[in-house]
């Protein structure tokens, strides 16, 4: 499969309506959502731009981490006193009230650390859709990266420029991380 050429249409931050309209026009020209990728300086709900909702596994990863934390806490609370029983005061070896405190802390720790690990792993994993970046994005612009067949180039150019887009042709994928 030949590498697709990626173009970028930049809209200023106030021109959300134009950006949404632009995506509509790209759809009309036959460019599917898989070939479009939107990058922006602030989060826009996918509904604003008429795009399919993104998905993430972070919720599930967080939950798994919470369960792991719970199990570790169960071991520390009930396993360790049974492994090496030491009597203190007239308290039982495995009292429930103290176990609740430890369980709560370790469960939350598991949830939060695993959520972060999820974010980290998902961020550095390869992503789908057109790749490319422009520093103006962090200056608040909305960028629409798209790749389409060469013959549509002119049509796209005209229809997007009408909406006030700044067009950048043949955006290269930059190595933004290591």
């Amino acid at each position: 499969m030949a590498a697709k050429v990626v173009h970028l249409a930049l809209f200023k931050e106030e021109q959300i309506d134009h950006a949404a309209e632009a995506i509509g026009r790209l759809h009309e020209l036959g460019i599917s959502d898989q070939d479009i990728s939107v990058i922006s300086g602030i989060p826009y709900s996918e509904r604003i731009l008429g795009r399919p909702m993104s998905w993430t596994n972070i919720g599930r990863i967080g939950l798994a981490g919470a369960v792991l934390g719970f199990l570790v806490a169960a071991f520390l609370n009930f396993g360790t006193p049974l492994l090496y029983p030491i009597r203190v005061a007239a308290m039982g070896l495995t009292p429930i009230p103290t176990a609740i405190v430890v369980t709560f802390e370790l469960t939350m720790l598991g949830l939060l650390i695993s959520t972060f690990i999820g974010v980290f792993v998902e961020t550095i994993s390869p992503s789908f859709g057109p790749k490319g970046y422009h520093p103006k994005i962090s200056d608040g612009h909305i960028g629409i990266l798209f790749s389409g067949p060469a013959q549509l180039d002119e049509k796209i150019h005209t229809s997007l420029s009408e909406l006030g887009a700044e067009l950048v042709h043949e955006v290269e994928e930059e190595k933004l991380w290591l």
Partner: protein
Amino acid sequence: MAEQKVPQKWGLVVDLDRCTGCNACIAACSMENNIPFVGEDDVAYGRGMYWLYNKREWVGEYPEVKPAFEPVMCQQCGNAPCEPVCPVFASVHSEEEQINLAVYNRCVGTRYCANNCPYHARQFNYFDYEMPEPMNSYLNPDVTVRRRGVMEKCTFCVQRIVRGRQKAAAEGREVQDGEIQPACVQACPAGALVFGDVSDPQSKASQAARDQRRYQLLEELGTLPRVTYLKGGGRYGS
């Protein structure tokens, strides 16, 4: 070897009507347990390391003022507040002797146990206290010398308890009542301190503990202390 009966439950009885406040118990305890000398300034500031202190209260109106003595040591509580709060298990309940153990090697020095003791019976080693030559020659080899940063307290002379039990086991007999005596009990000239197995109803300590004059310190807190005090006011019986 004689059949090992149930471990003894050691208890101490302090007869306040006999106590003269001579502090021989404190001196004996210090010698037996290698208690360091911290110096006048530190003692004045409240850092004396004595495991046993004599609470002296003045009773009565002038000119009939009298001191009332109450030697207080670690009460070896059955429900010790110092035990559950230690993060590293340096203050634990002994299954064998049923007293509270001070594990010097494990203590990291958070001092939570000392705060939680309602009798303020615990001491903390603030410095490495020097024993200049030749004073270090009288150190008791049965007891460790604690370094700075660890808590210490009265142990009912557990080294004597263990030695007594081992001797009895080696000779194939039971431990006799009165055979094992902590240093303070041994030293008291008035015989105000009685030590023994309170689970044996016939021992001297048990009998003394059943006296009508008995009370326990801060009983209402529910610490289940092993030390019983006897106090009749000095005129009891007259």
